[in-house]
């Protein structure tokens, strides 16, 4: 990456916050935890990193626990004129506990002829691929586990591992619906990950860096000041077209309506997760929801200024932005019909791909000419 990076950095030097090319990879959260514990060196890095990872993972798992059994129901209910869970605890919140116990205490059914190691590993791969992605997400207020120079590449690479998990689940389940779901997942991931990453690349061109913290920092700069109100240089505002593309591709990438073809309940029962029950089902479910939040976190970081926002502390704003994305996915779920697989792939290859490359070229030209 360094070659292209250097060129971009030099052209963009005025924009960037003076970050040196040679700045070492940092780990803000791990460092501060190590500092608090009075540790340094390798021990500090390891202990701080582990504790930090534990914290971030738990925050995300808790968020998912709220989103899955409770928020999703409440949101869908309000779209469909219903009340949803309201019996257990305030606002029905304790349904989270009840549902967890219910799901975990169910029998784990292992169907005949499943391909054992692959079938068992799939839920773990899906869940942890999403969790790993959060390692480089800058939550704001210093909450970032690691900040490598290649953060953007890392987060997409980690998120894409989920496809492997889905294919494993689909292929190992010894079920034709699962197989169809797995195949659909491969097809859709190939078709939509390219536009997703190409669109993200246009942001990288703007920012001149792959480092997450730097991308956030670039967006902090003012774009225009209208009547005393400073509008920051969020890339969603600079290039709304790219943001729209990215959001669409993101929906497809996380497999939400109208692009939830890998599981499409009315067509292929539950797709790749048909044969999973009990703990494995919980893991798959967790994985899916963490992926939604990871999608939201990436969108927030790349396009919505990361943790930037008035009054409230940064991580609150970041959290709000992730939830906003979650709300958006649920809205789409309640309102938009699902496409057919061939139409979906057509739109991906013939529409999104072309548009995203056009966006990339245009951005490159604009950045090259103007800056």
């Amino acid at each position, binding site marked *: 990456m360094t070659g292209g990076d250097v060129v971009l950095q030099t052209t963009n030097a005025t924009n960037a916050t003076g970050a040196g090319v040679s700045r070492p990879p940092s780990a803000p959260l791990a460092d501060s935890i190590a500092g608090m514990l009075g540790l340094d060196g390798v021990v500090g890095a390891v202990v701080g990193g582990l504790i930090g990872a534990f914290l971030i993972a738990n925050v995300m798992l808790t968020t998912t626990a709220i989103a899955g059994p409770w928020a999703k129901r409440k949101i*869908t209910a309000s*779209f*469909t*004129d*219903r009340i949803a869970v309201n019996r257990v605890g305030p606002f029905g919140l304790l349904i989270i506990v009840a549902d967890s116990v219910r799901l975990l205490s169910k029998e784990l059914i292992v169907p005949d002829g499943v391909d054992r190691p692959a079938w068992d590993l799939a839920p773990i791969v899906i869940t942890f691929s999403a969790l790993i992605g959060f390692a480089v997400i800058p939550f704001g207020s210093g909450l970032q586990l690691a900040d490598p120079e290649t953060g953007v590449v890392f987060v997409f690479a980690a998120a894409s591992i989920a496809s492997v998990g889905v294919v494993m689940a689909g292929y190992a389940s010894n079920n*034709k*619906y699962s197989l*169809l779901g797995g195949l*659909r997942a491969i097809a859709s991931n190939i078709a939509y990950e390219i536009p997703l990453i190409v669109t993200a690349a246009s942001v990288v061109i703007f920012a001149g860096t792959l480092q997450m913290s730097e991308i956030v920092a670039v967006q902090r700069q003012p774009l225009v000041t209208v009547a005393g109100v400073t509008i920051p240089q969020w890339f969603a505002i600079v290039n709304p077209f790219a943001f729209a593309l990215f959001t669409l591709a993101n929906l497809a990438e996380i497999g939400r*309506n*109208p692009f*939830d073809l890998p599981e*499409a*309940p*009315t*067509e*292929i*029962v539950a797709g790749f997760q048909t044969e999973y029950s009990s703990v494995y089902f919980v893991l798959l479910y967790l994985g899916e929801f963490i992926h939604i939040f990871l999608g939201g976190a990436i969108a927030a970081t790349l396009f919505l200024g990361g943790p930037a926002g008035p009054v409230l502390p940064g991580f609150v704003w970041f959290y709000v932005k992730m939830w906003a994305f979650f709300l958006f996915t649920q809205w789409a*779920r*309640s*309102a*938009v*019909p*699902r*496409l*057919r*697989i*061939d*139409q979906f792939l057509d739109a991906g290859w013939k529409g999104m791909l072309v548009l995203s490359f056009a966006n990339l070229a245009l951005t490159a030209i604009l950045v090259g000419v103007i800056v």
Partner: protein
Amino acid sequence: MSLEEPGPDADAAAVARAADEMEALVGEHVRSRDDHLNAPGYVVRPDAVQDVLGTLREEANLDHLSCVTAQEYEDRYESIYHLKSYDDPTHEASVVVPTPKDDPRSESAAPVFRTADWHEREAYDLVGVEYEDHPDLRRILLPETWQGHPLSLDYDQERPQIVPLREHANPLEDDQEGDEGETMYLNIGPHHPATHGVLHLKTTLDGEQVIDVDPDIGYLHRCEEQLCQKSTYRYQIMPYPDRWDYISAGLLNEWAYARAIEDMADIEVPEYAQVIRTMGAELCRIAAHMLAVGTFALDVYGDFTAIFMYAVRDREKVQNILEDLTGQRLMFNYFRLGGVVWDLPDPREEFFESIRDFLDHLPGSLEEYHDLISANEILQVRTVDTGVLPPEVAKSYGATGPVARGSGVDYDLRRDDPYGYYDELDWDVVTEDGMDNYSRLLVRLREVEESAKIIEQCVDLLEDWPTDDRTIQSNVPRTIRPDDDTEVYRAVEAAKGELGIYMRSDGTEQPARFKIRSPCFSNLQTLPEMSNGEYIPDLVASLGSLDIVLGEVDR
């Protein structure tokens, strides 16, 4: 015929003349006449079925094989082909094919009418008539390994027949078709989110494209025909129709039986009761169409969406009205021979007010559905030009109801073979020419508007109905014993299409044969025609657009 047409002699003469003309067409094959109350019946030899049906279809315009009834007499088996015309369903004929007791073989009508395929399979399954030249004569409702034919006279009703899984030809075991192994065999159902009940589709896939689909039905077979044959005309049969199409179309089903028995026993229905029946039936139609639209949206949208909830909400209002009227929400049992069981609920004003309230809100709701469903571009991309059913094919399969009307077949028994109070009211038959899933959706949505029109006019009539003329039931004897060997086939326009009842009396108070012609049974037959070559999602959408109820398919 004379019983059926009580009008002036001129009419009866014209009908008789038409019957003679038809007889002349196929005269060489006709051995005798065996007229039914609704139609002339021509008795033909078992080896002339295709000739006769083919000629009648081409020359006499009898292009709708509505139903095939098989039954066993003491001395013979009999298959009856109930023919109608799509242009004029009152133009009817029955082709009666007797076959000897010891060798019940008869020529199949499947090469002439494709709908005969399933109907004859059912006749073979339940009665035991064998059809030669049938493309695929195997059991349809009962398991492959079932012993005997339950509606035949010598069948041992007492003998238990438990078919253990191991002995039963496992319907799920097939795997591959062809030697190349290029295709995949997929069982959709019997438990699948989109089959709307226990339907099993044996599907052969090439990638995601459907090469062949073979519906396997019978999972919900509850012996409804036999139950009716064991029940008395007067009181015991009426509750059963509610259980055929149980998607709140109960009154429509009850009307099918009421119409058949009222023709058979020559029972008059007071006009006031006819208006109440018409209003109740149309309320049921709205309720049924609401659910059809909601579940179709569910099939296409994929997730639990607003549309389904909105549709169910509106259906709920209809059900509240029906509950006020009948005392029940689902199994109404409201019709009686010669009328209805009780008058409108008191206070009447309040009841009318609740209906008017519902009707006032309906246009707004429909607009909302159109915004959410029919105007949605993604839904249009999904449904336009998928599940195409050309009118000629629809007719050959005996498709009726919204399925036929969505293919541009202008056929509605309420208008073409009027009963109840429909011919006095101002409403239109809805047709769409698109022939696809989208057209069938539009037909249903627009039919709700027409039903609302009918209900409004009924309410107007009922409000002004003179107090001293509110007869809800005519005087019907406690026991009904129609004359021996009276046969009638009568159909009404139910929510899903033509729901017909064939009954033969044997002089007792129970029917000797009670045959249900279910619209869903015939409509479901068109599924392979619509889906072959399309994707699984289109198969699911087509199935949703057919709006089948397995309770009615399997009976």
